């Protein structure tokens, strides 16, 4: 068992099966786990407890002897000692006697740690089997006056439930991945074919506007509408470009790039906004960085556009700061604003494709940023600044090593 991390955000919705039945209820019914089993477990707990240490020792001796499974442990002996404490508590939890939604959530939280450290499912199966065997042995050796045959059955049933909970956490992670990158790719392919096809009618509109403008220049009102149509064709064209970039999903081609110039260029290419001031602040002694200039320029453009929209939602004015600096060999880019800041939901979902808090835009800009940063091996995160407003930080590791 791995360390539990209580900061892990639990899914707020109630866990359910595909048929909509609560997961725990379904599991309990499936393995035939009843009140009697709960009572038996609660009753035999004190008798088995002295033998937990032996189970835990054997468990970690087995893991450490296995080259694949032991890779999940990176913190040496200190970590193993801590993990042994966690596993002992976990074993105690099995015999707690109350198996409700809160129990499910507590156990799932531990399962999610395994998913996060990328422990492969086959090791998880083997590990659960070690525990099951250990518990059966412990019951054989324990002084316990109850019905031993039924005791063994209860141990099997609770172990089955635990295994199912662990598998559920892997399924959760899989679903989250589908929702994220895979959904992005599928969406991108679909969008690209539509986007391409839209460019033909846009080209007709563009040229028709051009031809009309020559004929009606005398009437300012007509001219204004033609300008408007022309501008909107441009907006539609840039949305299509974003979609196509998503669909392309190409790997970054790194080369040494002057970061300051790249950021200046990016900021200049964002259409000026009357109510939003953009301030560029890049440390002058920043060495050239190894990155894909086209992709990172797009990241900066999208973040700045996002910031501008954040500070000027209802016509008030604000400032967007675009900062670039170094932290060791990492390139750190920050786009900050003095807008209203991020809601908890926005903070959790801002990089999900199609998530948007605004009525214009389709929610691809930040998703695209995340994918580009991921492909550079970097991280992107949003937070609220203590002085108000939001900040999105991009960290690109090994961008400043200078050798590539």
């Amino acid at each position, binding site marked *: 068992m791995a360390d539990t991390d209580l900061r892990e955000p639990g899914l707020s919705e109630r866990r359910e099966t595909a048929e909509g039945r609560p997961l725990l209820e379904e599991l309990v019914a499936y393995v035939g786990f009843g009140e009697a089993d709960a009572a038996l477990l609660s009753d035999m707990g004190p008798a088995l407890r002295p033998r937990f240490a032996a189970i835990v020792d054997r468990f970690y001796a087995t893991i450490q002897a296995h080259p694949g499974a032991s890779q999940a442990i990176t913190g040496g002996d200190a970590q193993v000692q801590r993990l042994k404490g966690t596993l002992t508590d976990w074993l105690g939890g099995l015999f707690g006697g109350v198996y409700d939604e809160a129990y499910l959530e507590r156990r799932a939280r531990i399962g999610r740690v395994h998913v996060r450290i990328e422990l492969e499912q086959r090791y998880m199966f083997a590990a659960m089997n070690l525990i099951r065997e250990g518990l059966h042995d412990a019951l054989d050796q324990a002084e316990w006056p109850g019905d031993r045959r039924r005791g063994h059955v209860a141990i099997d049933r609770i172990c089955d439930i635990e295994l199912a909970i662990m598998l559920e956490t892997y399924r959760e992670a899989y679903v989250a991945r589908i929702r994220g990158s895979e959904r992005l790719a599928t969406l991108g392919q679909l969008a690209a074919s539509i986007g391409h096809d839209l*460019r*033909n009618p*846009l*080209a007709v509109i*563009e040229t028709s506007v051009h031809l009309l403008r020559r004929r009606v220049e005398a009437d300012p009102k007509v001219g204004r509408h033609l300008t408007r149509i022309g501008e909107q*064709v441009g907006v539609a064209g840039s949305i299509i470009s974003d979609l196509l*970039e998503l669909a*392309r999903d190409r790997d970054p081609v790194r080369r040494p790039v002057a970061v300051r110039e790249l950021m200046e260029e990016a900021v200049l290419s964002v259409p000026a906004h009357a109510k939003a001031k953009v301030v560029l602040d890049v440390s002058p002694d920043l060495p050239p960085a190894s990155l894909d200039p086209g992709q990172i320029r797009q990241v900066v453009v999208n973040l700045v556009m996002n910031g501008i929209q954040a500070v000027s939602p209802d016509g008030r004015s604000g400032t967007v700061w675009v900062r670039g600096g170094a932290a060791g060999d990492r390139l750190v880019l920050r786009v900050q604003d003095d807008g209203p800041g991020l809601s908890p939901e926005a903070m959790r979902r801002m990089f999900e494709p199609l998530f948007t808090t605004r009525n214009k835009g389709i929610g691809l800009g930040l998703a695209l940023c995340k994918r580009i940063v991921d492909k550079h091996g970097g991280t992107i995160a949003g937070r609220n600044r203590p002085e108000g407003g939001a900040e999105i930080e991009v960290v690109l590791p090994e961008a400043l090593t200078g050798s590539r």
Partner: protein
Amino acid sequence: MRVLVVDDNRALAENVAEILEIEGYETLVVDDPAEALRIARDTPFDAAVIDVRMPGMDGITLHAELSRIRPEATFVLMTAYARDERIEEAMQVVRQDDGTRVPLLTKPFATERLLEALRQPGGGPT
């Protein structure tokens, strides 16, 4: 100065032709690439603006055929599918006589870009 405008989207072909006529070009609008090839065989032309993706014959093939018939003509390709890797790849081999690449306009394009492309050496209204 006669320009062949070939696009299966007839509305766009006619708009492009109208823009060119205002600039003093003479135009021939064709919405079928095979028809364009037939016309080119017996009608002299100085330039051709060709859509890349068309049914029957793609614009890159048509360009190759037309430049065999009239090597000195100016060619401009246009496409709504510029980010398509197959088209990017195909464009690598599309060269003019002097070895320079044939200009490729991405739809929608600003009118000025089309006129610039036609004003390459050998192009431009007389």
